[in-house]
Structure formats: C-alpha cells, structure tokens
C-alpha cells in the first residue's frame, strides 16, 4: 500500500506547477538581464559612449568597465596566466577551494561538538555564551594582520575562513540541540535508553537538519571572508589574492570584477550543493 502519494493535483495542477518553475526561471533570467543592461548603460555614461554624447562625470571610466570587458577578462583569466602570480584562474580556484575545505573541516570538527554540548548543557551554555557573543560580531577581517603574522601564509588564511564558517555552524547546532522535543527524550527513556543512547539516537539525529543549515550558511560566510583571508598573500594563490592584486597592483578593474564573479559563482555552486544535500537528507530522514 502506498500512502500520501498526492494524486489530487491532477494534470492541470502539474502543468501550472511546471509553469510556476518556468516562471521562476524566466524572472531570474530577466532580473540578471536588467542588471546587465543597467550596468552597460552606466558604463556607457561614464565612458561618454552611445547613447550619451559626452563624458558626463569626472569619475574615471575604468572603474566600471563594460560587462563584455569583464566577461572577456573572465575568460582570459582561464586561458592566460595572471601577471602577478603567473597562475591560471583554475589554480586560484583550486587554492581557494582547498582553503575553504580545510577551514570548513576544522570549523565543523570544532563547532559541532561545542554546539551539541552548549545546546544540551546549561552550564556549558553559560560558560560558552559570553565568549560567543563577544567574538562573533568581530569581523574576520580584523583578525587578518595577526593571523598572517602569527600563523603565516598557509594556516593564516585558513584560520580566517574558519572563523567565518565556525559561528553559523556552532549557533545552528546549538539551536538544534536545544530544540529537541523533550517528549522524544521521555519516550526514549521509557524505552530503556540511557544518556548515551539518548545522545546518539535522539539528540544527534534531531540536530542533523540544523547542522546542514549551519553548513549552508557557513559556506556562504566563508566565501565572504576569502578576499580578507587571501589579501595580504597566500600560499599557492587564490581568487581573493587575484582580486586584490588586480585592483591594488595593476588597476586592472575588468579582471578584478572577473575575480569577484568567480567568487560569486563558487559561492552559488557550493552553497547550492550544500542546500541540495540538506534537502535530500531531511527528505530521506523523513523530517520535512
């Protein structure tokens, strides 16, 4: 017997449902197109190009290159080595991904146990909370100088990414562990569960979806920190380093924007993958 297969929507419902997803796609594409159009117009205005008859503002035109120039720089960064590090964009991406990966693994390993502990023990929460509240609002950027000096060019950037990813995972896991329905714990106890069983068979599974949310958010924040992490130098390059070099060393703003585009895309891809995993996992677990 199959239950809850929703046949009530029928064909009509399914068609409109499909239209719905097409509409989302269309609106998304339209929004990007409008953005690019406005950008082009603004560049044209700065450059004094058609449809504007003359340069109308004193700001240097190269600050806002045309979208086509950025696209060209984007492609070029993959096909030609950049003049400062002699690396292809693929190497920068690889370096940044590796940094993100190390930062993520470290953050995960530290934040999950701490979050579980603080979520389940009032004492642990009382001890940890003031520190979390104090350190969380400090932008990772503030740590850059001392991390690079103290931890050098390999671990320094990783530590900065770690900070970005750490807090979202910690807070989500903590919140998840706190929200475990007490009646589930009562049920487990009447079924003979001891502290250890309650932890592994009730608290931990309950927290997994929250953990996944923390990971998704954390990865996003991690990418926001990548430029800060890499800006003063990083072993083996990095997209953040690329952006910083292009702007400060070379005034090659088209390439700088191309680097920013790479970070945006990497973030979309990685958080998208985490989101997909999150959905799959909660569906598989029967939670959502």
């Amino acid at each position, binding site marked *: 017997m199959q239950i809850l297969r929703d046949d009530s929507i029928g064909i009509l419902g399914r068609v409109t449902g499909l239209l719905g997803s097409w509409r989302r796609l269309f609106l998304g594409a339209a929004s990007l197109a409008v953005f690019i159009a406005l950008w082009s117009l603004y560049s044209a205005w700065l450059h004094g190009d058609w449809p504007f008859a003359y340069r109308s503002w004193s700001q240097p035109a190269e600050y806002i290159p045309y979208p086509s120039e950025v696209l060209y720089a984007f492609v070029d960064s993959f096909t030609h080595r950049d003049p400062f590090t002699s690396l292809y964009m693929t190497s920068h991406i690889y370096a940044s991904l590796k940094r993100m990966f190390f930062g993520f693994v470290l953050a995960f390993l530290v934040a999950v146990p701490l979050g579980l502990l603080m979520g389940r023990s009032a004492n642990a929460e009382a001890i940890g909370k003031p520190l979390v509240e104090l350190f969380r609002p400090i932008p990772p950027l503030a740590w850059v100088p001392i991390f690079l000096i103290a931890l050098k060019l390999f671990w320094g950037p990783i530590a900065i990414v770690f900070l970005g990813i750490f807090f979202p995972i910690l807070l989500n896991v903590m919140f998840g562990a706190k929200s475990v329905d007490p009646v589930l714990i*009562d*049920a*487990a106890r*009447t079924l*003979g569960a001891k502290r250890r069983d309650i932890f592994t068979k009730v608290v931990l599974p309950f927290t997994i979806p929250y953990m996944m949310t923390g990971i998704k958010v954390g990865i996003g924040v991690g990418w926001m920190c990548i430029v800060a992490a890499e800006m003063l130098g990083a072993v083996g390059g990095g997209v953040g380093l690329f952006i910083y070099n292009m702007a400060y060393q070379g005034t090659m703003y088209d390439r700088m924007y191309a680097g920013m585009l790479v970070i945006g895309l990497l973030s979309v891809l990685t958080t998208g993958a985490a989101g997909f995993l999150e959905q799959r996992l909660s569906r598989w677990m*029967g939670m959502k």
Partner: protein
Amino acid sequence: MDGNEVVISMKQLSKVFTKDRRQIKALEGFDLDVKEGEFVCLLGPSGCGKTTILRIVAGLETATGGDITVRGNKPGVAGQARGMVFQEFALFPWRTVRKNIEFGLEIKGVPEAEMQKMSSQLVDLVGLKGFENAHPKELSGGMKQRVGIARALANNPKVLLMDEPFGSLDAQTRNLMQKELLRIWAATNKTILFVTHSVDEAVFLADRIVIMTARPGKVREIIEVDLPRPRDRTSQEFIKVRGKVLTELDEEFEKARAKELSPE
C-alpha cells in the same frame, strides 16, 4: 485475567514541584494498587496530577514522598517493566514505522533477525501491515498512535502507561482506537494505567475508574465498572455509570474552581 498479584503499588505518594521558588503540591497522599491484567483509568480535573502519577510510575519523575513499587522494584530501575504511550505520539520523525517500533529492542541489543521478527509481529498486532517503511509524517493521527502502542509493547513490558493517548484524535478515530486498544489488551494481557479526562472513554475502557481530587491530587473515589465488554455506550447501564462518574467529577471541578477564585 487470573492474577490478583499487585503490579503497581502506590502508598501515600506525594510530589512537590518547585517553580520560581514557589512550591506546588501536585500529589498528596495518593494510594492505589493496580493488579495484574487490570485496566485502570485515572480521571480528574486538569492539573490534578494524573500525568504526574504516570510519569512517576514510568520512572521519568521521582516522588517526593511515599512509596511506590512496580512489580516489587523501584520505578526506573526495572527499565523494561513499563512502556509508555504519549498524547503527542512522541515518534522519532527520522525513523520509519518499523524502526520506531524497534527502538527499545535496538537499545537492548536484540539481534537483527530476531528484532525484525518481533517488529513484524507487532506491526500485525496493531494493524499497520504495509506501512512498515513509512515515516511518521506520512501517517494519520490514529496510525501514529498505533505505532506508539507497538513501540511501547516491543520491550514486552508488564505495564502499559498511557497518557491521554487518544486526546488529539477526532471523535471517530478515537472510538475506533478505543476498540483497538481493548483488542490489543485482550491479546497481550497487559496491565494498563490510562490517563484521560473523557468520562465516556473511561467508562468504555476501564475495569476501575480512579477519580482524583483537584490539586493536590489524591484518590477521591474508585468506581468499579462491572459491565461486560464490548460495552454499548447507549445502554442504560453504561449511561448510569457515566452519570455517577460525571456527578463525582463535577463536584471536584467546582471545588477546583472555588479554590482558584478564593485568595490564597
């Protein structure tokens, strides 16, 4: 139901909760013996400590005074002597029906093959065949509670504790589940301690109805329901018992209200 052996014995049980530095007496001088195979319903105004008694028997709370033994042991020590069914079902959402039922067996370390056999039998007993691999969110309320009952039975407890198990079900499902519970009770010979605030439910199910006083809860009156099963809700005798229980309960309810209105 042969036994006259007392399974649950409560003597002068009391429970005081401390909340915001104020002490609340939930139970005071509660006496009750439940015999083997008996179906006992606890009935009383809300806040009278019905659920507290169940939680003490289950070992989830400890009494602050008096004596309680479950089959001669302190509750909570004999982990497998009691199974509990909750009003909120309390199923593990990430576990399938089968895995929910097997929870207690898993903790005991029952081998996989045996566990499967036992859970299959329970699935049959509670009428969930075909739903073994469904997750709780896919089930209706009545079906969820069938899982709850099967899960509590899996450890083969002597005593089944039920805390308003059908309280969140619609009227039809509730009546059906009451019949189902009687069928399961007859098939398993469990001793059942059942909390409810439905008079109709208590008269339909119980061998004995324990009417409790308003807080602090103690026994006001025990009413034996001597009607043969299956009981007919519309019969003269049923209505008579129902009337008697209602009168007792109304008085207790009035007392509770008067107490609430009077300054302390």
